[in-house]
């Protein structure tokens, strides 16, 4: 751990005791152990464990963080809670996944706890994360520890040297990637890569494809969505827009590392920190990760574009791509339709409704502690935590970020990109209906991986996704899914 991180941790630990006092008195949770399940590695899990130690020192409640492979998080939690095993007290996962657990009555309603909590200050949580991420059916069932948007990042120095502008459209992305691919971007004498995207199967590749597809499919504002016809729940996937997105996504591989198909997010982060990538699709993390000591080659050089768009959009009646106009894409700017994707919606903690009350109290106290500005405003500035900003106090001013070591121009760009995405009226929401993980994390991910590997054509992939999504919809019940989609899109009661 770097000196900066250590200092930050020590300072935040001091603040911790004060932060906890509002929800938990010292020794209040003596003998209580809260078992948390989340993803592997330091990202997300590491900071939970570190804050858990502070929590234990202040309240006596022990926090045990268990890590499992990404693809196993949701099924493990679902099976554990549903079958009454209850070895997991808290799950930290994608905010959108909570709705399926809640439909089965497995999530604890946090509103009564929040009513007594004077420190959490949920008004400071940005409206999208507070209303969409944390609430299910109007009740708070999750507490964010992270806020997520996927953006495009570019190496400012490399593009400037090549006389190129940051990409505005996905076609620009390919053009820029092709022009800078093969250049030595870190001075080690080796040819580097125009584009780096984590494309490993059973990981998070299915998120990046949605970032590309959203701007082709969603044109009428956030409530329209880009997965289904909301009235019928018929998939809007087997069409020219998704086809174009798949083809573009595959083409980025021409300018990526040769082993890109087997790279998870940790692998791409390692190479962009080593200065080997000209463009990336990523969450908010590169903004702060470039401040790490092992990212000296790129410190202050990785800038963000809040959204990359398209000049062609889907005509849902015909399934064809048509040029952008103000009529078919009212939120378009200069003939480009943007739909920044709130990929994953952010990592959030949920409490198992079947555990005993003492554990629930301890679990809530800990999640509240993680969420409170005193802790969160520190954690989001440390790249390695994997936590990105989701509170207004983190988004309105660059002070926090400059104080954390981010150059002022980068901080301006970074927050500008996130705010631009967050405030875009055509922002694309991640799926938030029962089966969300299966629709995207299983069906979309598998077919995408097989298309990228050349096993099937794009048409076959899209046809399989359409059939797979229909199967999931039928499993959960079409009428129920229509209602759930209406709630998720904010169009139903």
């Amino acid at each position, binding site marked *: 751990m770097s000196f900066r991180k250590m200092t930050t941790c020590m300072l935040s630990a001091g603040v911790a005791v004060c932060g906890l006092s509002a929800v938990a008195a010292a020794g209040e949770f003596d003998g209580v152990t809260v078992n948390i399940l989340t993803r592997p590695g330091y990202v997300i899990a590491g900071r939970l464990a570190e804050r858990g130690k502070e929590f234990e020192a202040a309240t006596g409640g022990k926090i045990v963080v268990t890590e499992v492979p990404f693809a196993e998080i949701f099924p493990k939690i679902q099976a554990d809670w549903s079958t009454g095993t209850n070895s997991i007290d808290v799950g930290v996962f994608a905010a959108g996944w909570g709705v399926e657990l809640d439909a089965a009555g497995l999530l604890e309603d946090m509103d009564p706890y929040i009513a007594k909590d004077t420190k959490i200050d949920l008004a400071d949580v940005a409206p999208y994360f507070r209303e969409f991420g944390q609430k299910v059916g109007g009740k708070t069932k999750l507490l964010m520890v992270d806020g997520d948007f996927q953006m495009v990042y570019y190496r400012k120095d490399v593009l400037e040297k090549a006389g190129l502008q940051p990409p505005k459209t996905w076609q620009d992305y390919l053009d820029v990637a092709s022009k800078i691919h093969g250049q030595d971007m870190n001075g080690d004498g080796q040819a580097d890569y125009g584009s780096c995207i984590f494309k490993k199967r059973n990981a998070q590749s299915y998120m990046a494809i949605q970032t590309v597809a959203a701007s082709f499919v969603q044109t009428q504002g956030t409530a329209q969505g880009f997965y289904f016809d909301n009235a019928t729940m018929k998939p809007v996937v087997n069409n020219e827009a998704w086809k174009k997105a798949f083809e573009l996504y595959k083409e980025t591989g021409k300018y990526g590392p040769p*082993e890109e198909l*087997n790279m998870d997010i940790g692998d791409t982060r390692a190479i962009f920190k080593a200065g080997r990538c000209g463009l990336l699709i990523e969450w908010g993390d590169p903004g702060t990760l470039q401040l790490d000591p092992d990212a000296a080659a790129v410190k202050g050089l990785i800038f963000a574009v809040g959204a990359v768009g398209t000049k062609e959009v889907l005509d849902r009646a015909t399934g064809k791509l048509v040029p952008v106009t103000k009529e078919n894409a009212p939120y378009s700017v200069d003939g480009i339709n943007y739909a920044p994707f709130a990929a994953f919606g952010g990592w959030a903690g949920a409490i198992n409704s079947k555990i005993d009350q003492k554990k629930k109290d301890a679990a809530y106290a800990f999640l509240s502690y993680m969420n409170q500005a005193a802790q969160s405003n520190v954690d989001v500035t440390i790249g390695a935590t994997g936590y990105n900003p989701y509170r207004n106090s983190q988004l309105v001013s660059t002070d926090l970020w400059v104080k954390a070591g981010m150059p002022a121009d980068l901080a301006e760009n970074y927050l500008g990109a996130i705010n631009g995405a967050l405030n875009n009226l055509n922002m694309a929401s991640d799926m938030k209906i029962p089966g969300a993980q299966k629709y995207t994390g299983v069906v979309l991910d598998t077919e995408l991986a097989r298309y990228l590997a050349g096993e099937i054509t794009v048409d076959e992939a899209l046809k399989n996704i359409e059939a797979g999504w229909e199967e999931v919809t039928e*499993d959960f019940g079409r009428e129920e899914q229509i209602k759930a989609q209406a709630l998720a899109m904010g169009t139903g009661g």
Partner: protein
Amino acid sequence: MADVTNNSYQPGTSPAGASSGMSWGEWLDRHSRTFFITPAVTLILIFAIFPTFYSIVFALSRVRFTADGLQFRFVGLQNFAKQFFGNDQVHFLGKTEGIGVLGWVFFGAVTAAVLWWLYRSLRITSPVGMLGRLISAAMAIFIAWIMGASLLAGSTIGTLLTTLFYVFVGCALQFVIGTGLAFLCSQPIAGKNFFRVIFFIPLMVTPLGVGYAMKMVADITKGPFEPLLRGFGIENWVWSADPWAARFVMMICDSWQWIPFIFICMLAALENVPRDHVEAAQVDGASSVQIFREITWPQIVPVAVTVLLIRTIEAFKIVDLPNIMTGGGPGSSTESMTLHSLYIWRSNDIGTSAAVAYLLLILTVVVCASFFNYVVLGQLRKARA
């Protein structure tokens, strides 16, 4: 009645149900076989037979997780059908749209050979045996068609053929190398004991350990072979992005671990070949090849086919290596049927997962039972004769 009238029954000396006059010791002695076997049978029923049959319920249902536990919805054979005709067909069988000339030739040759074999069996086999042969024949013809329509047509293969690739190509490679090494170590050469230990070591490493070790060794961008490949000018190619290269790497890594199993069994068999037979052949002027073919091989063949059978059964279960090294990728190229089932299970689609597991069970049983009946038993009978 006489016994009752005479009242020769002695309370406390005979167990209930025992004939009069039989002591506890005698009764226990008489039923000792039952007592010894009951715990094992009970455990097998609980831990093997019951789950196997219970999983049929899963395979015939769609399963939902609710607050009250699992909720089953009976769907008949739908979970099986979608592997053959539904949207999982390409994943399981591969792409089988166009069958080329080579495919037709292969399919025709296999079908003709199988039908000829069945025709010949008619005269020598009982009705029950014939039923078994019909099942084996149907499986062989089906697999030949899938191979002709996907593999030989240059199309994508599914997890079925990937599994068979690991089993047949992998086991053949392991058998040839393992037997060769065993033969070398059975010869009077210097340091053979040292090599015996060295060749045996990979079998003692856990599959997980092998997976991660091989992942590092096979990493051609940072691993030990990177300078060598760079020397050959191979810099922008990685095996993990090429379906067939990935399958071969997987098969080679699996072989690294399992060659020692073949080696140690075959070494034991070779050491048991009577020296006097070999020496007599040498005195008669037989060449080394003739001695191996006529003396050694016939004596080790029962062990060889048995070892191959055990290894084949084990090979059908390959899961650790592709899971760790490639996550089944690129795409689903390195995904075995076990891994296919695991990934579906991991997404809580337990019904489909159970269906794939049953398909694997059927495949394994038919292939291994056929091999046992038509190869192993034949060789054992020949050896006894």
